[in-house]
Protein backbone atom coordinates (compact mmCIF):
# COMPACT_ATOMS: atom_id res chain seq x y z
CA UNK A 1 0.00 0.00 0.00
CA UNK A 2 1.30 3.43 -0.80
CA UNK A 3 0.85 5.58 2.26
CA UNK A 4 -0.40 9.03 1.54
CA UNK A 5 1.65 11.75 3.14
CA UNK A 6 -0.48 14.22 4.94
CA UNK A 7 0.80 17.62 5.92
CA UNK A 8 0.51 18.18 9.64
CA UNK A 9 1.39 20.70 12.26
CA UNK A 10 4.80 19.11 12.88
CA UNK A 11 6.76 19.69 9.70
CA UNK A 12 9.50 17.15 10.45
CA UNK A 13 7.37 14.04 10.60
CA UNK A 14 4.40 12.83 8.58
CA UNK A 15 1.54 10.78 10.01
CA UNK A 16 2.69 7.83 7.91
CA UNK A 17 6.20 8.06 9.34
CA UNK A 18 4.83 8.29 12.86
CA UNK A 19 2.44 5.38 12.39
CA UNK A 20 5.20 3.19 10.96
CA UNK A 21 6.86 3.38 14.38
CA UNK A 22 3.75 2.35 16.32
CA UNK A 23 4.28 -1.46 16.36
CA UNK A 24 7.69 -0.96 17.99
CA UNK A 25 6.44 1.79 20.29
CA UNK A 26 3.67 -0.40 21.67
CA UNK A 27 5.98 -3.42 21.87
CA UNK A 28 8.43 -1.33 23.91
CA UNK A 29 5.75 -1.03 26.56
CA UNK A 30 5.29 2.70 26.57
CA UNK A 31 1.58 2.53 25.67
CA UNK A 32 2.45 4.00 22.30
CA UNK A 33 3.94 7.11 23.86
CA UNK A 34 7.38 7.64 22.36
CA UNK A 35 10.57 8.85 24.03
CA UNK A 36 12.00 10.08 20.74
CA UNK A 37 11.50 13.89 20.73
CA UNK A 38 10.40 14.03 17.08
CA UNK A 39 7.82 11.28 17.57
CA UNK A 40 6.63 12.83 20.82
CA UNK A 41 6.29 16.22 19.17
CA UNK A 42 4.20 14.71 16.41
CA UNK A 43 1.99 12.90 18.91
CA UNK A 44 1.42 16.09 20.88
CA UNK A 45 0.49 18.15 17.85
CA UNK A 46 -1.37 15.65 15.65
CA UNK A 47 -4.94 15.10 16.81
CA UNK A 48 -5.43 12.22 14.40
CA UNK A 49 -2.39 10.23 15.53
CA UNK A 50 -3.04 10.90 19.21
CA UNK A 51 -6.62 9.60 18.77
CA UNK A 52 -5.23 6.54 17.02
CA UNK A 53 -2.75 5.83 19.83
CA UNK A 54 -5.49 6.34 22.42
CA UNK A 55 -7.84 3.91 20.64
CA UNK A 56 -5.19 1.24 20.11
CA UNK A 57 -4.18 1.40 23.75
CA UNK A 58 -7.84 1.20 24.75
CA UNK A 59 -8.29 -1.92 22.60
CA UNK A 60 -5.20 -3.53 24.15
CA UNK A 61 -6.49 -2.69 27.64
CA UNK A 62 -9.96 -4.02 26.89
CA UNK A 63 -8.47 -7.28 25.64
CA UNK A 64 -7.72 -8.19 29.23
CA UNK A 65 -11.50 -8.43 29.71
CA UNK A 66 -11.39 -11.46 27.47
CA UNK A 67 -8.94 -13.33 29.70
CA UNK A 68 -11.77 -14.42 31.97
CA UNK A 69 -13.38 -17.34 30.18
CA UNK A 70 -17.08 -17.26 29.39
CA UNK A 71 -17.49 -20.38 27.30
CA UNK A 72 -17.93 -23.86 28.67
CA UNK A 73 -17.36 -27.16 26.90
CA UNK A 74 -20.23 -29.64 26.77
CA UNK A 75 -20.37 -32.47 29.34
CA UNK A 76 -19.53 -34.83 26.52
CA UNK A 77 -15.93 -33.56 26.48
CA UNK A 78 -15.25 -34.75 30.02
CA UNK A 79 -16.98 -38.09 29.31
CA UNK A 80 -14.65 -38.69 26.38
CA UNK A 81 -11.59 -37.66 28.41
CA UNK A 82 -12.60 -40.00 31.23
CA UNK A 83 -13.18 -42.90 28.83
CA UNK A 84 -9.76 -42.41 27.24
CA UNK A 85 -8.02 -42.08 30.61
CA UNK A 86 -9.72 -45.25 31.87
CA UNK A 87 -8.62 -47.08 28.76
CA UNK A 88 -5.01 -45.89 29.12
CA UNK A 89 -4.96 -46.78 32.83
CA UNK A 90 -6.30 -50.26 32.05
CA UNK A 91 -3.62 -50.76 29.40
CA UNK A 92 -0.92 -49.61 31.79
CA UNK A 93 -1.98 -52.10 34.47
CA UNK A 94 -2.31 -55.08 32.11
CA UNK A 95 0.41 -57.69 32.65
CA UNK A 96 2.77 -58.08 29.71
CA UNK A 97 1.73 -60.83 27.30
CA UNK A 98 3.67 -64.07 27.48
CA UNK A 99 4.52 -65.03 23.91
CA UNK A 100 4.54 -68.79 24.85
CA UNK A 101 0.84 -68.72 25.79
CA UNK A 102 -0.23 -67.73 22.30
Amino acid sequence: MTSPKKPNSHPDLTCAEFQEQLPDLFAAGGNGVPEDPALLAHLKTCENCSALVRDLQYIADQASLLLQPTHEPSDNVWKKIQAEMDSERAQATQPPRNPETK
Partner: protein
Amino acid sequence: MDVQGLQMTQTKPVPGLFKRNPPIAGEAEAIESAKAGDAEAFSRLYALHKRRVYTLCLRMLGNVSEAEDMTQEAFLHLFRKIGSFRGESAFSTWLHRLTVNLVLMHLRKKGLNLVSLEETINPSEEDAPKRDFGSRDPQLAGSVDRVALERAVASLPPGYRMVFVLHDVEGFEHNEIATMLECSTGNSKSQLHKARLKLRELLRHPEPSILADLKETAK
Protein backbone atom coordinates in the same frame (compact mmCIF):
# COMPACT_ATOMS: atom_id res chain seq x y z
CA MET B 1 6.31 -28.45 15.94
CA ASP B 2 7.41 -30.59 18.85
CA VAL B 3 4.75 -30.13 21.50
CA GLN B 4 6.80 -31.92 24.11
CA GLY B 5 9.83 -29.78 23.55
CA LEU B 6 8.01 -26.50 23.52
CA GLN B 7 5.66 -26.47 26.39
CA MET B 8 6.76 -29.35 28.54
CA THR B 9 10.23 -27.98 29.06
CA GLN B 10 9.85 -25.23 31.58
CA THR B 11 11.78 -22.08 31.16
CA LYS B 12 12.54 -19.27 33.58
CA PRO B 13 9.33 -18.01 35.20
CA VAL B 14 7.91 -14.92 33.59
CA PRO B 15 6.73 -12.57 36.39
CA GLY B 16 3.97 -11.07 34.25
CA LEU B 17 2.44 -14.45 33.62
CA PHE B 18 2.32 -15.29 37.32
CA LYS B 19 0.65 -11.94 37.84
CA ARG B 20 -1.81 -12.73 35.06
CA ASN B 21 -2.32 -16.29 36.19
CA PRO B 22 -2.23 -16.29 39.99
CA PRO B 23 -2.32 -19.69 41.71
CA ILE B 24 -5.84 -20.99 42.40
CA ALA B 25 -6.86 -22.21 45.86
CA GLY B 26 -6.54 -25.97 46.10
CA GLU B 27 -4.80 -26.22 42.75
CA ALA B 28 -1.34 -27.15 44.07
CA GLU B 29 -2.75 -30.07 46.10
CA ALA B 30 -4.79 -31.25 43.12
CA ILE B 31 -1.70 -31.16 40.90
CA GLU B 32 0.38 -33.23 43.32
CA SER B 33 -2.42 -35.77 43.80
CA ALA B 34 -3.05 -35.97 40.06
CA LYS B 35 0.67 -36.60 39.51
CA ALA B 36 0.31 -39.58 41.87
CA GLY B 37 -2.53 -40.92 39.73
CA ASP B 38 -5.52 -39.64 41.73
CA ALA B 39 -8.40 -39.57 39.23
CA GLU B 40 -10.54 -37.37 41.46
CA ALA B 41 -7.75 -34.78 41.66
CA PHE B 42 -7.48 -34.75 37.88
CA SER B 43 -11.20 -34.12 37.58
CA ARG B 44 -10.75 -31.13 39.95
CA LEU B 45 -8.04 -29.77 37.66
CA TYR B 46 -10.39 -30.21 34.72
CA ALA B 47 -13.14 -28.35 36.56
CA LEU B 48 -10.75 -25.51 37.42
CA HIS B 49 -9.34 -25.06 33.92
CA LYS B 50 -11.89 -26.37 31.41
CA ARG B 51 -13.49 -22.99 30.70
CA ARG B 52 -10.25 -21.18 30.08
CA VAL B 53 -8.78 -23.96 27.93
CA TYR B 54 -12.00 -24.30 25.94
CA THR B 55 -12.38 -20.53 25.51
CA LEU B 56 -8.79 -20.33 24.27
CA CYS B 57 -9.41 -23.16 21.78
CA LEU B 58 -12.65 -21.57 20.65
CA ARG B 59 -11.01 -18.18 20.07
CA MET B 60 -8.12 -19.72 18.16
CA LEU B 61 -10.25 -22.07 16.07
CA GLY B 62 -13.57 -20.24 15.82
CA ASN B 63 -15.40 -23.57 15.74
CA VAL B 64 -17.23 -25.29 18.63
CA SER B 65 -16.68 -28.85 17.45
CA GLU B 66 -12.95 -28.42 16.84
CA ALA B 67 -12.60 -26.44 20.07
CA GLU B 68 -14.15 -29.32 22.03
CA ASP B 69 -11.90 -31.85 20.31
CA MET B 70 -8.81 -29.78 21.11
CA THR B 71 -9.94 -29.28 24.72
CA GLN B 72 -10.17 -33.04 24.99
CA GLU B 73 -6.70 -33.42 23.43
CA ALA B 74 -5.23 -30.81 25.74
CA PHE B 75 -6.48 -32.52 28.89
CA LEU B 76 -5.44 -35.96 27.67
CA HIS B 77 -2.01 -34.54 26.95
CA LEU B 78 -2.05 -33.08 30.45
CA PHE B 79 -3.03 -36.48 31.89
CA ARG B 80 -0.04 -38.11 30.19
CA LYS B 81 2.49 -35.38 30.97
CA ILE B 82 1.47 -33.86 34.28
CA GLY B 83 4.42 -35.62 35.92
CA SER B 84 6.77 -33.29 34.07
CA PHE B 85 5.23 -30.15 35.60
CA ARG B 86 7.74 -28.81 38.09
CA GLY B 87 5.97 -25.66 39.24
CA GLU B 88 8.49 -23.21 37.82
CA SER B 89 5.69 -21.29 36.14
CA ALA B 90 2.01 -20.93 36.94
CA PHE B 91 0.21 -24.17 36.16
CA SER B 92 -2.36 -22.29 34.08
CA THR B 93 0.43 -20.69 32.04
CA TRP B 94 1.95 -24.09 31.43
CA LEU B 95 -1.39 -25.63 30.52
CA HIS B 96 -2.27 -22.78 28.17
CA ARG B 97 1.08 -23.01 26.43
CA LEU B 98 0.48 -26.72 25.98
CA THR B 99 -2.98 -25.97 24.56
CA VAL B 100 -1.74 -23.25 22.21
CA ASN B 101 0.91 -25.56 20.80
CA LEU B 102 -1.56 -28.40 20.32
CA VAL B 103 -3.95 -26.08 18.49
CA LEU B 104 -1.14 -24.76 16.29
CA MET B 105 -0.04 -28.32 15.50
CA HIS B 106 -3.63 -29.18 14.66
CA LEU B 107 -3.85 -26.19 12.33
CA ARG B 108 -0.58 -27.08 10.65
CA LYS B 109 -1.74 -30.66 10.10
CA LYS B 110 -4.77 -29.28 8.30
CA GLY B 111 -3.19 -28.06 5.11
CA LEU B 112 -5.89 -25.54 4.36
CA ASN B 113 -5.63 -23.79 7.69
CA LEU B 114 -1.87 -23.72 7.51
CA VAL B 115 -2.08 -21.85 4.23
CA SER B 116 -4.64 -19.37 5.52
CA LEU B 117 -2.61 -18.79 8.68
CA GLU B 118 0.50 -17.97 6.68
CA GLU B 119 -1.45 -15.82 4.29
CA THR B 120 -2.72 -13.67 7.09
CA ILE B 121 0.65 -13.59 8.81
CA ASN B 122 1.91 -12.04 5.61
CA PRO B 123 -1.30 -10.55 4.24
CA SER B 124 -1.48 -8.80 0.94
CA GLU B 125 -1.47 -5.05 1.24
CA GLU B 126 -5.09 -4.98 0.05
CA ASP B 127 -6.13 -6.98 3.09
CA ALA B 128 -4.23 -4.83 5.54
CA PRO B 129 -6.23 -2.31 7.57
CA LYS B 130 -6.32 1.09 6.02
CA ARG B 131 -4.19 3.79 7.53
CA ASP B 132 -6.07 6.33 9.49
CA PHE B 133 -5.99 9.68 7.81
CA GLY B 134 -8.42 12.46 8.20
CA SER B 135 -11.17 10.63 10.03
CA ARG B 136 -12.83 12.35 12.94
CA ASP B 137 -14.95 9.55 14.38
CA PRO B 138 -15.67 9.52 18.09
CA GLN B 139 -13.02 7.83 20.15
CA LEU B 140 -13.60 4.28 21.33
CA ALA B 141 -12.84 4.79 25.01
CA GLY B 142 -15.77 3.72 27.17
CA SER B 143 -17.86 2.53 24.25
CA VAL B 144 -16.84 -1.10 23.91
CA ASP B 145 -17.89 -3.99 26.11
CA ARG B 146 -16.50 -7.49 26.13
CA VAL B 147 -19.29 -8.97 23.99
CA ALA B 148 -18.72 -6.44 21.21
CA LEU B 149 -14.97 -6.91 21.45
CA GLU B 150 -15.34 -10.68 21.45
CA ARG B 151 -17.39 -10.54 18.26
CA ALA B 152 -14.97 -8.15 16.63
CA VAL B 153 -12.06 -10.44 17.54
CA ALA B 154 -13.95 -13.42 16.11
CA SER B 155 -14.33 -11.62 12.80
CA LEU B 156 -10.59 -10.92 12.44
CA PRO B 157 -8.66 -12.86 9.80
CA PRO B 158 -7.13 -15.99 11.43
CA GLY B 159 -3.54 -14.75 11.46
CA TYR B 160 -4.46 -11.42 13.05
CA ARG B 161 -6.77 -13.14 15.52
CA MET B 162 -4.10 -15.64 16.54
CA VAL B 163 -1.50 -12.99 17.39
CA PHE B 164 -4.04 -10.71 19.11
CA VAL B 165 -5.37 -13.55 21.30
CA LEU B 166 -1.91 -14.81 22.17
CA HIS B 167 -0.47 -11.38 22.99
CA ASP B 168 -3.24 -9.11 24.22
CA VAL B 169 -5.53 -11.72 25.79
CA GLU B 170 -3.24 -14.55 26.89
CA GLY B 171 -0.22 -12.39 27.67
CA PHE B 172 2.45 -14.13 25.62
CA GLU B 173 5.50 -12.07 24.62
CA HIS B 174 6.37 -11.40 20.98
CA ASN B 175 9.41 -13.68 21.13
CA GLU B 176 7.25 -16.53 22.45
CA ILE B 177 4.65 -15.95 19.76
CA ALA B 178 7.35 -15.84 17.11
CA THR B 179 8.60 -19.25 18.26
CA MET B 180 5.11 -20.71 18.36
CA LEU B 181 4.05 -19.35 14.98
CA GLU B 182 7.48 -19.83 13.40
CA CYS B 183 7.75 -16.21 12.33
CA SER B 184 9.99 -13.30 13.31
CA THR B 185 9.32 -11.11 16.36
CA GLY B 186 9.00 -8.18 13.94
CA ASN B 187 6.28 -10.09 12.14
CA SER B 188 4.48 -10.76 15.41
CA LYS B 189 4.62 -7.05 16.36
CA SER B 190 3.42 -6.05 12.92
CA GLN B 191 0.56 -8.58 12.97
CA LEU B 192 -0.55 -7.41 16.39
CA HIS B 193 -0.56 -3.80 15.27
CA LYS B 194 -2.58 -4.67 12.17
CA ALA B 195 -4.98 -6.70 14.30
CA ARG B 196 -5.57 -3.72 16.61
CA LEU B 197 -6.03 -1.40 13.64
CA LYS B 198 -8.53 -3.82 12.13
CA LEU B 199 -10.37 -4.07 15.46
CA ARG B 200 -10.52 -0.29 15.69
CA GLU B 201 -12.02 -0.21 12.23
CA LEU B 202 -14.53 -2.95 13.12
CA LEU B 203 -15.52 -1.28 16.38
CA ARG B 204 -15.90 2.19 14.86
CA HIS B 205 -17.76 0.95 11.80
CA PRO B 206 -19.33 -2.22 13.14
CA GLU B 207 -20.99 -4.97 11.19
CA PRO B 208 -24.69 -5.32 12.20
CA SER B 209 -24.06 -7.94 14.91
CA ILE B 210 -21.33 -5.84 16.57
CA LEU B 211 -23.44 -2.70 16.20
CA ALA B 212 -26.24 -4.35 18.19
CA ASP B 213 -23.81 -5.04 21.04
CA LEU B 214 -22.56 -1.46 21.02
CA LYS B 215 -26.13 -0.13 21.19
CA GLU B 216 -26.83 -2.46 24.10
CA THR B 217 -23.75 -1.12 25.89
CA ALA B 218 -24.87 2.47 25.40
CA LYS B 219 -28.26 1.84 27.10
